[in-house]
Structure formats: structure tokens, C-alpha cells
């Protein structure tokens, strides 16, 4: 990035700046004329100096070109009009009005140009800084705090962008305005001009010096603010750990201290800023004092006429604002220069991967061996991660890198996967050097999957197909439809700001990279891939849990509605009817929650959410009428008691809360208090309505076979059914939009596809019920050609920021699918399967290797058994490559052979456990 802000701005906006400067020059005569005109109005029109006693008329608007006598003397361009005193006054006033309009128009254009220029530069700078982050070396980008980077791009660049629009225009404009005013004053009275000039010089020299401290404070503030943003981001990220450690007070104290530092800087800044402002205002106001006293004296003594004095005072009124603004501009200049330098300092050249010219580098042929020559990798503290090694890896081959965690196996995998740039030695493949390999070429033949699946917020499909977004759409400044002016303007503006003209929504996806002809075929490729990475069942489940929109998915809804009958028939044919309890309007469904049974529908808004039902006046009145309020409070209390007992000694934020508790950890104290209150009072009746609502909210999620408290008596069920009928029958019209009632004859938009297909609940307690029912659904939908639609809906499952809504295994599978989708010739797996159990990891690796048959897989492992079946094994002891093993050698070398007799017996024991252990 350019080190000097002004050079940067000039380089990228020279043309626009020059145009605006030319407009400023053009505006000056009009500006000057606006000073001169009041004098003429006062002297010529009002005091009548243009008229002599015997001449009631004078010439107005006469125009002539004064030329030397040698060239013919004065040339008259326009003789003008003969006007009387009133007509002259009106004429001059109209010209004054015209000048006001013209000067205003110039100002408008200049301000608009400044704004647009600034915004354009802001866009360019944000884009460049963002691009610079993408160019960070892999080792360095990991050290960047995301919140700090966001703060730089979003907040710190903003004022710089705003300034860039004014970088050249503002001083030019203001200087010319000030000089014009000063020149005018001097032309009226040299002495008054000198007074004005002296004040300007004091302002121009003293104030910037006083502002230096302001700048230092502003710089400190910027650095501290950035640190604060980074710290807040960090705390939010590790918030559960902070809860668990009980270090909240310490973290709060730390943040309080930082906020205090910022306050102190800001307070000092204010003191300095307003002191300077005071001085500035004083100097501006003291000048008229000289004008009134000295100018008045000159007018009284006849050295200057009143018109001149009025014009001087009027001109001076226009002098301080440009001077003040010039000083402000200089302050901004110094301020943003510092900010700019601070930002540029974030991107020293040594942190960035050299920008590789997109020269024509062809990916190496798939059978070109990998030559590793004197490769060495050390960490930032100089500790070797990989000691100097030289090897040749034949391709295609499946190669295992074997060694303990932290050994050279990880270092080599990272270098081969291009995740470490600071290595010594060379890696070449088919004449292509690893160090000078552009991303665009590397991504065409290789993929790396590391231990941290780096997923982004979006749906599953977006994350899996990300490597296929590599076909930048050809976008020219001219849109396909020349009449589309908005699109044309958008593209032009993007190019002017150094941004890409192509939108992310354009057709970036190239299905051919995945071996598919089109999007339809790509779906099949993805489905295959899901099987390979063990994600197919999960995605199918997501699909069945997905929802369809009546407005857009009409055709699919019809097909799924038609599938229900067939599924129910297939369930019956397989003797599984008892496994699904249908949602019958006349029966209590024991496998559904109490709220589902009461509402017999799905809430569309929060009004019918479980925790709101107990406090809703309408629902509450019906529950009261059916005598259900008290039993529900009782159920809620028993559930709360169990949770408090079970989770009492688990720290807040413990993962078990999320998985098994009916109560969120932050709500635990409230429920604990309720339980104590009931115990102390010996009755539920004294609980307030709000407290009862809390317990009712808990009870609403109760499912008898799941929670197993034996509270659902036939009487309770009868009353629940009466409540169900009453709720629907008397539902106020204002509630209509809050619920969608179950209706066996209609597709329910608020319900999942599975609920629509079964129109019932899978019975708890029947062994493998869910698996067996899903199997029937899957087969039936496959027969009806709807399975692909389900997978598609499953792929649109939103995975949350960083894939937080997925399990760690699912995240790893997505990362693996992403690594495989572009059919790489070389796949580097570096702890990519570490979240799986050993047997799952082996099965998964087997499928990945089958998918990569004929291509190269380089996988890092810790256990020798994992390397079974690989063509070659490179074994590491610490950072050192110790040997290459063939498969037999690996197994012979396994620690199994050297285990203790006790462990050997333990290993044997399961083969014939004496008491039937399996």
C-alpha cells in the first residue's frame, strides 16, 4: 500500500481532482464580483455617484475590452443600457441575486464532487485493505484479531475516506476564497488588508502548533479503540469459558480500565480542542474591532469612503470562514495522515504473500512427483517444526505422514497444503515451484483440509461448493442491455473505485470443476460426496426437518402431500404403524408435547411460544376454565426440581445444559428461587402469575414417554382435549395470524416436511423407531423421485456463524466435502478427521481414499494402524523425518507389539469377557 496518503489520493483521483480544480478557478471571477457588487450598489446606485447633476441617466451593463493603443485601443463589446438611478439599483440588485445563484451552484457542484470523490476513495481503500488481509501469510492471518480487522476496515478508514475528497480541492478552494477576499480588502485599503493578513498569519502559524498535542492524543485514542474492539471480540468469543472460570469480575475490571483510558484521552483531547477553538474565535472576532476603529477613523478622515468600508467589512465576513476551515483542513490532514500511517503499518511487506503475477503457470501433471529439497520449517520462536528433509513423493500415491502430535508430520502437511509460507528449501512438482504458486493455479489441482473446519455463515451447499466459485464472470463497463443505465453506472463506479465490476450474485459457480455439466448434475455430485464424507443421513434429516413455502414451492408441496398416503401404507406393510402416533384431533398424542396437544397447531409468532402461553390472557383464561392451570404449574415445578437437582453442581454454560436440560443455565437461579419459595410456603397457590407462567412454560415441553414422570392421567388428557377445542373455537380474530392449526387435509407450511409426511409423532420407546421410520420415508420418497428434493432442502440448512449449528463431526465432514468437490489431483489432510472416533475415522478415510483413487492423498496420522493400506509412509520423530516405511514395517513397528502383559490381557479380555461384556 502507498506510504503517502496524498500520493495515494493523487494517483487514484488525479483526473477528478483536476476537473474540480478547474471548476474552482472558473468560479473565482464570480466570487470576486460578489464582493465588488455591494460597493457599486452603495456608491453608484444609492449614493448616486454614477449620476452627475445634469445627467439623470447612466450606462448600465456596458462591456468593453481594454487593449493597448498600438492594438487599436479599447474595443466596445456592448454599449449597455441607459438607466435612471432606480433602474440602476434594480439592475445591480438583480445581478447580485444572479451571482448568489451562480456562486451557490459552484459551491453545490464542488461539495458534491468532494463527497463523491471521498466516498469513492473510501470504497477503494476499504477494498484494498480487505484484499491486503487476504494476502497475509497463513502464519500471520491467524494472529489477526477479527474484531480489530473489522474495526480498521469499518471505522478507522471512514474519516480518511471522507478527507480524501477534500485532500486537494478543499485547500485550493479555501485558499483561493481567502486570497480573493484578502486581495479585495487590500485593494480597498492597504492598511486594513495588512491587519487582516496579520491575523490570518497568527491563525495559520500558531494554531497548528497548538494542535500537535491534539494529534498525539488522537493517535493514542485510535490505538486504544482498536485494542478495545479486539478485546471485546475476544471476550465475546470465549464468553462460555469466562462463565465457567468465574472470571467475569476480572474481565469486567479489565474492560472498565480500558474504557477509563479512553475517557482520559478523550477528556484531554476536549481540553486542548476547546482551548484552541477559543483562541481561534478570539482572533476572528478581534479583526472587526480593528476594522471598525481604524476603518472608521479612515472613513471619518476622508481617506476612504463609506462604501469601501462596508465592502471591506463584508469581504472580511467571508475571510475568517475559509481561514478557519483551512486550519481545520490542516488539522484533519495531520489527523488522517497519522491514521493512514497507522493502517499502512498494519501491512508491512514481510507479512504479505508476494503478489504473484497471474502468469501462465499450468498445474503440474497428476503423475509428476513431489520433490522436497532441504525443506525446513521453524516457528516464530525458532523452534524447529520440521527439520531439514529431502524426499520425493511419487504421484499418484496415497501417502501417510506418521508421527505424534506436534511432530514434523504436521509441519510437512502444512507446507504441502500451503498453510505455511515461511519455510526454507524448495518443493517442486512438475517444474512448478510451491513458493511461487498462485492461488488460482494451486486451487485447480490441490486441496488442503486442516484440523479446524473454516466454515462461513450460510447454508451447507454454499459451504460445500465454495471451491467451485472460481469462474469470474466476464463483466465489462457496458451492460448487456445498453438501456440499463443503473447497471452501467454501477459497473462504472465499481471500476473507478478499483473494485471488481462483477457482483457476487453473478454466475461464479463452475460446475465443470466438480465434473458436472450443469447445476442439476452438480446436485448428483454433491449427493455422492455427502455419502463419501458420511454426511448423507444428516443432510437428509435436515431436509426432512426443512419447510416448504406455499407461495413458491407449490409443485413440491403437491408431490409431498401425495406421498403421505404411500408412506403410511409402506409403514403398515412393514408393521410399523404402531411406531407413529397420528395427530388425531380427537385424541391426546402422548408422544407430542403438552403445548402441541393443547394448541393442536404450530405457533407462527411468539404469542404461542411455550414460555408465553402461561401469561397470555386468552390461553390462561381457557386453561383456568378447564382447571389445567394448577396441574401444569405442578408439572413445571417437578421438572424444575429435577433439573436443579441434576445440574446443581455443573458450572453455568456447561454443554450438558444445552443438550439435556429443560432450563437454560442462566435461568437456573430463578427456578431455584421458585422451588425454595414453594418449599417455604408449602403451596403453589401463593406464586405470582408471572412465576406460575414460568413453570407453565416448562410444563408445555413435557412429553410423557420422554420425561417419564407419570403425570398424564386420563382426566388430564380429557381436559387437554377440551382445552384444544375451546382454544380453536373461541380464538379471537387478532390471534388468527399467530397459529396454524393442524389439519390432516392440508399441507402445513409451519410444519416440517417430515411432520407433513407422517402427520404424527414417532413413538418414544420403540427400539430404533426413528431409524426405521426414516428408512421407510427415504425409500418411499426415492420411489417417488423426491429424494433429491429432500437433499436439496437439506443442503439449504443454515449452519450458523462458523458452522456453530453443526456438530464438530458434521463441520469436519463439510470441510472434507469442500476439499473433495473440486476433484483435486492432490489432497492434503492434516488432522481433518481428528474429531471422529478411530473406527469412524478409518471408515471415512477408506471412502475418501476410494474417491481419490488414481489421485494423490497425503494424510497426517498419529497411530500406525491408521496408515494401513497407504502406499508410502513417512515417519517422523519430533521434527525429524526418520524413515519411510512399507506397510508391513509399520505394523511390525506398532507399539502394540511392545505393550505390557496387563494391557495385552486387557486387549484380549473383550474377545471373551467372563461376564458377557460387549
Amino acid at each position, binding site marked *: 500500500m502507498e506510504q503517502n496518503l496524498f500520493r495515494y489520493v493523487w494517483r487514484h483521483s488525479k483526473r477528478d481532482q483536476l476537473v474540480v480544480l478547474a471548476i474552482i478557478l472558473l468560479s473565482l471571477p464570480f466570487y470576486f464580483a460578489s464582493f465588488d457588487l455591494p460597493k457599486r450598489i452603495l456608491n453608484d446606485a444609492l449614493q448616486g455617484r454614477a449620476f452627475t447633476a445634469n445627467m439623470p441617466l447612466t450606462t448600465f451593463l456596458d462591456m468593453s475590452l481594454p487593449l493597448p493603443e498600438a492594438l487599436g485601443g479599447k474595443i466596445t463589446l456592448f454599449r449597455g443600457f441607459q438607466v435612471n438611478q432606480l433602474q440602476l439599483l434594480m439592475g445591480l440588485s438583480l445581478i447580485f441575486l444572479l451571482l448568489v445563484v451562480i456562486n451557490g451552484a459552484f459551491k453545490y457542484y464542488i461539495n458534491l464532487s468532494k463527497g463523491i470523490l471521498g466516498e469513492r476513495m473510501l470504497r477503494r481503500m476499504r477494498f484494498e485493505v480487505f484484499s491486503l488481509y487476504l494476502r497475509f501469510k497463513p502464519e500471520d492471518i491467524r494472529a489477526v484479531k477479527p474484531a480489530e480487522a473489522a474495526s480498521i476496515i469499518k471505522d478507522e478508514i471512514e474519516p480518511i475516506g471522507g478527507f480524501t475528497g477534500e485532500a486537494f480541492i478543499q485547500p485550493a478552494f479555501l485558499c483561493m476564497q481567502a486570497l480573493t477576499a484578502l486581495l479585495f480588502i487590500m485593494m480597498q485599503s492597504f492598511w486594513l488588508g495588512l491587519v487582516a493578513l496579520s491575523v490570518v498569519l497568527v491563525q495559520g502559524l500558531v494554531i497548528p502548533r497548538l494542535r500537535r498535542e491534539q494529534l498525539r492524543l488522537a493517535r493514542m485514542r485510535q490505538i486504544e479503540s482498536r485494542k478495545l474492539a479486539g478485546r471485546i471480540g475476544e471476550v465475546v468469543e470465549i464468553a462460555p469459558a469466562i462463565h465457567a472460570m468465574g472470571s467475569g469480575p476480572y474481565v469486567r475490571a479489565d474492560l472498565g480500565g480500558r474504557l477509563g483510558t479512553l475517557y482520559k484521552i478523550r477528556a484531554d483531547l476536549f481540553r486542548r480542542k476547546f482551548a484552541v477553538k477559543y483562541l481561534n474565535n478570539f482572533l476572528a472576532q478581534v479583526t472587526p474591532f480593528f476594522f471598525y476603529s481604524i476603518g472608521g477613523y479612515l472613513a471619518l478622515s476622508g481617506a476612504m469612503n463609506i462604501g469601501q468600508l462596508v465592502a471591506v467589512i463584508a469581504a472580511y465576513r467571508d475571510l475568517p470562514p475559509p481561514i478557519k476551515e483551512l486550519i481545520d483542513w490542516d488539522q484533519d490532514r495531520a489527523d488522517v495522515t497519522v491514521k493512514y500511517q497507522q493502517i499502512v503499518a498494519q501491512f508491512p511487506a514481510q507479512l504479505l504473500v508476494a503478489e504473484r503475477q497471474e502468469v501462465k503457470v499450468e498445474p503440474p501433471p497428476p503423475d509428476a512427483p513431489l520433490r522436497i529439497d532441504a525443506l525446513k520449517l521453524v516457528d516464530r520462536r525458532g523452534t524447529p517444526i520440521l527439520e531439514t528433509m529431502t524426499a520425493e513423493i511419487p504421484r499418484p500415491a496415497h501417502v501417510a505422514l506418521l508421527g505424534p502430535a506436534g511432530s514434523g508430520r504436521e509441519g510437512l502437511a502444512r507446507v504441502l497444503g500451503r498453510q505455511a509460507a515461511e519455510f526454507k528449501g524448495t518443493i517442486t512438482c512438475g517444474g512448478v515451484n510451491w513458493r511461487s504458486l498462485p492461488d488460482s493455479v494451486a486451487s485447480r489441482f490441490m486441496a488442503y483440509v486442516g484440523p479446524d473446519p473454516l466454515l462461513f455463515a450460510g447454508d451447507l451447499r454454499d459451504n460445500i461448493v465454495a471451491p467451485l466459485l472460481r469462474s469470474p464472470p466476464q463483466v465489462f463497463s457496458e451492460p448487456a442491455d445498453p438501456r440499463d443505465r443503473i447497471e452501467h453506472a454501477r459497473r462504472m463506479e465499481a471500476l473507478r473505485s478499483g473494485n471488481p465490476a462483477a457482483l457476487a450474485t453473478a454466475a461464479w459457480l463452475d460446475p465443470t470443476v466438480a465434473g458436472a455439466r450443469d447445476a442439476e448434475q452438480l446436485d448428483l455430485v454433491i449427493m455422492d460426496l455427502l455419502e463419501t464424507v458420511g454426511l448423507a443421513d444428516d443432510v437428509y434429516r435436515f431436509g426432512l426437518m426443512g419447510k416448504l413455502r406455499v407461495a413458491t414451492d407449490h409443485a413440491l408441496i403437491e408431490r409431498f402431500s401425495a406421498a403421505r398416503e404411500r408412506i403410511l401404507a409402506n409403514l403398515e406393510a412393514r408393521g410399523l404403524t404402531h411406531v407413529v402416533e397420528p395427530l388425531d384431533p380427537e385424541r391426546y398424542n402422548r408422544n407430542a408435547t403438552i403445548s402441541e396437544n393443547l394448541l393442536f397447531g404450530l405457533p407462527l409468532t411468539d404469542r404461542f411460544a411455550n414460555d408465553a402461553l402461561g401469561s397470555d390472557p386468552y390461553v390462561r383464561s381457557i386453561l383456568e376454565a378447564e382447571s389445567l392451570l394448577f396441574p401444569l404449574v405442578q408439572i413445571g415445578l417437578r*421438572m424444575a426440581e429435577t433439573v436443579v437437582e441434576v445440574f446443581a453442581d455443573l458450572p453455568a454454560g456447561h454443554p450438558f445444559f444445552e443438550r*439435556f436440560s429443560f432450563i437454560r443455565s442462566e435461568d437456573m437461579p430463578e427456578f431455584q428461587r421458585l422451588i425454595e419459595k414453594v418449599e417455604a410456603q408449602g403451596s403453589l397457590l401463593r406464586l405470582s402469575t408471572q412465576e406460575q407462567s414460568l413453570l407453565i412454560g416448562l410444563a408445555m415441553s413435557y412429553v410423557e414417554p420422554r420425561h417419564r414422570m407419570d403425570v398424564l392421567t386420563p382426566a388430564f388428557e380429557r381436559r387437554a382435549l377440551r382445552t384444544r377445542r375451546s382454544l380453536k373455537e373461541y380464538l379471537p380474530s387478532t390471534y388468527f395470524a399467530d397459529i396454524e392449526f393442524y389439519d390432516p387435509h392440508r399441507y402445513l407450511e409451519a410444519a416440517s416436511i417430515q411432520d407433513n409426511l407422517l402427520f404424527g409423532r414417532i413413538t418414544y420407546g420403540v427400539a430404533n423407531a426413528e431409524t426405521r421410520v426414516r428408512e421407510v420415508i427415504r425409500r418411499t420418497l426415492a420411489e417417488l423421485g423426491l429424494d433429491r428434493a429432500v437433499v436439496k432442502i437439506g443442503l439449504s440448512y443454515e449452519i450458523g456463524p462458523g458452522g456453530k449449528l453443526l456438530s464438530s463431526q458434521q463441520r469436519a465432514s463439510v470441510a472434507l466435502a469442500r476439499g473433495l468437490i473440486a476433484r483435486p489431483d492432490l489432497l492434503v489432510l492434516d488432522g481433518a478427521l481428528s474429531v471422529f472416533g478411530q473406527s469412524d475415522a478409518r471408515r471415512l478415510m477408506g471412502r475418501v481414499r476410494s474417491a481419490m483413487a488414481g489421485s494423490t492423498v497425503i494424510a497426517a496420522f498419529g497411530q500406525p494402524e491408521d496408515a494401513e493400506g497407504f502406499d508410502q509412509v513417512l515417519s517422523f520423530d519430533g521434527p525429524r523425518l526418520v524413515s519411510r516405511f512399507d506397510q508391513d514395517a509399520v505394523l511390525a513397528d506398532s507399539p502394540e507389539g511392545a505393550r505390557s502383559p496387563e494391557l495385552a490381557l486387557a486387549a484380549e479380555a473383550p474377545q471373551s469377557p467372563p461376564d458377557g461384556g460387549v
Partner: protein
Amino acid sequence: MYTSEVASLQRIAMFRDVPIAKLKLIAMAGRRVHYRPAEVVLRQGEPALMVYVIMDGQADVLRERDGKPVKVSTVGPGSLMGELGVVLDKPYLGTIIASTAVTALQIDSVTFIELLSQVPQLSMALIRELARRLMASSDHQAKVVS
């Protein structure tokens, strides 16, 4: 809540010293499932994805020998099944078939491992149980040798 599950768990030697609150946590994390007579609870060689505690009924433990299933024992209420496969991350080492109607508490392997890692009393109990089996196995081998 979970009274019958807790009672069944308390019948298992390895869970005898585990506090009731933790047994309720196990019950909460699991689900109660029913098997009809002759229904397979788990099958030898299949991935060990679940652990079972029999709460009611009897089941036969079978092992394949020379390709044929051989009944090696019968298990009843309070028996823990499938835990070796889950802990070792190996396929089930035997087959369990309900010989009467069986009610069991089913806990998935991920939850079981999580419970072991998060509840120290449970992991200690399992270590003790495995050590006991190791000793029993050593005694058995010693007898065979002698």
C-alpha cells in the same frame, strides 16, 4: 422423575457409588426403549453406537464361534451392554437378543463418552469395572493354564 431408571442403574455394580443426581443425569441423557421377545438389541460386528442398561426383562448374549452364534450368557435387569465397544471405539463384540420383553435405557455413544469425561465418578466407576474384568480374565486364564 426417572425413578425406575435410577433403580436399574443402582443395580449395576459400577454405578453403585455414583450419586443419585448423576444417575438421573444418565437417565435424562438416555431414552427408554422396549424390545419384543427375539428382537435384536445389538448385533456383533456392527458399529458400537449405543450403550444399554436393561431395566426389565431378560436377554441372551451370543458370540460367533466358527461362524455360528453361540449363547454365552443371559443378562437381566441392571446389566450394562455395549460399553466395551463404545469405549474401545470398536464394533460390538457380541449379539444381544431379547429373550423376553425387554425395557432398556439406551444412551448414544457420544453422550456416554461425554458423560464419562464430564462426570469423574462415572469414569472412575468404569475404570474400576474394567479392572475387575481384567482380574477376572487373568484368573480365568490362570485356571486354564493350570
